[in-house]
């Protein structure tokens, strides 16, 4: 399975690095903790210089690329995909490093299934003048899509914001959407069983529409003969 938050519901997978960066990881959490130890040492040594220079997101990203790539070359990878973002001197930066050392910068990045499900949405809807609130809404939209398709994730999200001042709003994990007291009861309730089945699966029909072949590849629905 991928991304299992089934058992430990409050694990934080994002950490602030130095004054300017934020690191998020997916994959093996213990390897992520090891990476945090490397970065702690890096930031400590940087602070010990005490000379007005500080590690920005670009430097941290490249350092991590070197670490991940070198481990892969030794056939002993750190099993993580890392997302690194930050702001320094007014310039914002966002990059990704995979467990084999593939690294790049872009306006939006994702790990794992996010690359397949979330990035198409982001490609359509991202633009350079997004406000923070719109950005959060866009991210929540992507996370919802991902959540629907993950059988072992819970509905809690953690969102962090990085600006020139540093990392702020690193929230406690927040619940994503509707909360049901008793999910089984809700699923069996009349409201759910008798809901109208519309044309569109959800807002993101486009994901399943192959424009070239002009074929719609919708998932099959179970049509309850009692209801119809």
């Amino acid at each position, binding site marked *: 399975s991928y991304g299992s938050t089934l058992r430990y519901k409050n694990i934080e997978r994002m950490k602030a690095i130095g004054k300017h960066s934020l690191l998020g990881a997916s994959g093996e959490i213990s390897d992520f903790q090891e990476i945090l130890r490397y970065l702690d040492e890096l930031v400590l040594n940087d602070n010990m*210089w005490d*000379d*007005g*220079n500080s*590690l*920005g997101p*670009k*430097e941290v990203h*490249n*350092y991590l690329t*070197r670490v991940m790539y070198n481990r892969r070359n030794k056939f002993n990878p750190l099993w993580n995909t890392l997302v690194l973002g930050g702001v320094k*001197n007014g310039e914002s930066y966002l990059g990704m490093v995979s467990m084999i050392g593939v690294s790049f910068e872009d306006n939006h990045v994702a790990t794992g299934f996010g690359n397949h499900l979330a990035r198409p949405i982001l490609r359509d809807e991202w633009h350079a003048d997004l406000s923070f609130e719109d950005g959060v809404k866009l991210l929540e939209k992507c996370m919802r899509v991902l959540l629907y398709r993950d059988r072992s994730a819970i509905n809690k999200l953690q969102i962090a914001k990085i600006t020139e001042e540093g990392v702020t709003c690193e929230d406690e994990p927040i619940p994503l959407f509707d909360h049901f007291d008793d999910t089984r009861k809700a699923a069996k309730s009349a409201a759910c069983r008798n809901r109208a089945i519309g044309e569109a699966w959800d807002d993101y029909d486009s994901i399943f529409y192959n424009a070239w072949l002009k074929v719609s590849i919708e998932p099959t629905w179970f049509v309850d003969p009692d209801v119809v």
Partner: protein
Amino acid sequence: MFRNQYDTDVTTWSPTGRLFQVEYAMEAVKQGSAAIGLRSRSHVVLASVNKAQSELSSHQRKIFKVDDHIGVAIAGLTADGRVLSRYMRSESINHSFTYESPLPVGRLVVRLADKAQVCTQRSWKRPYGVGLLVGGLDESGAHLYYNCPSGNYFEYQAFAIGSRSQAAKTYLERRFESFNESSREDLIKDAILAIRETLQGETLKSSLCTVSVLGVDEPFHFLDQESIQKVIDTFEKVPEEEEDGGEAEAEAAAAPAEQGGAGDQDVAPMEM
């Protein structure tokens, strides 16, 4: 300085608390030909006097590029200087490779100083016999440092090292307050004028000096002979006749005597 019984080893203190071998190493710096550095808020200029072993040979290189944003000028044992430049280049490029970002000059200078200090505390080593003027640019602006064989380093607005550098230092002392706001061209002109001070009467020609510049949006590079000659021509219209240079002229004649060692005849062949 006279010979005494505490100066054989670098690991022997004198009763007055001095390490004579280290001080002798600093004497070697004074024997080399002059090197000058000055900085403004956004640029650093390094200049040196070209000295050739003999008429038949080419002159020794005294200014080295360490990276696009760092340059170094040396005075003293050129071989030691070359080895330290290689070390600096290596440190700089390793940092660039790992962090994809230029090495802050202050950090390079500290590593260099620590390397020099090691040589003052090992009985099987000797101190490096070269003084380094490290000029560079980083996030916090333009910097000029002087690294000593003793392992000390200092930051300067402007400095000169090598033989007859006192004349240049006097010139720079008079003018340094304006350097921070100087334009690039004025800075270069001041560097060449300071070089002229060390020549003590010899006619200043572009073949006699090497000038290098680095700054914001300007990677380290050497100025070519024509550019240097053009600057020289602005203040030396006719050789032996001084016109434009301003206050510098009147006091050039009264420049104090050379500093340090016994003069050119006693310069060891390995020093430049």
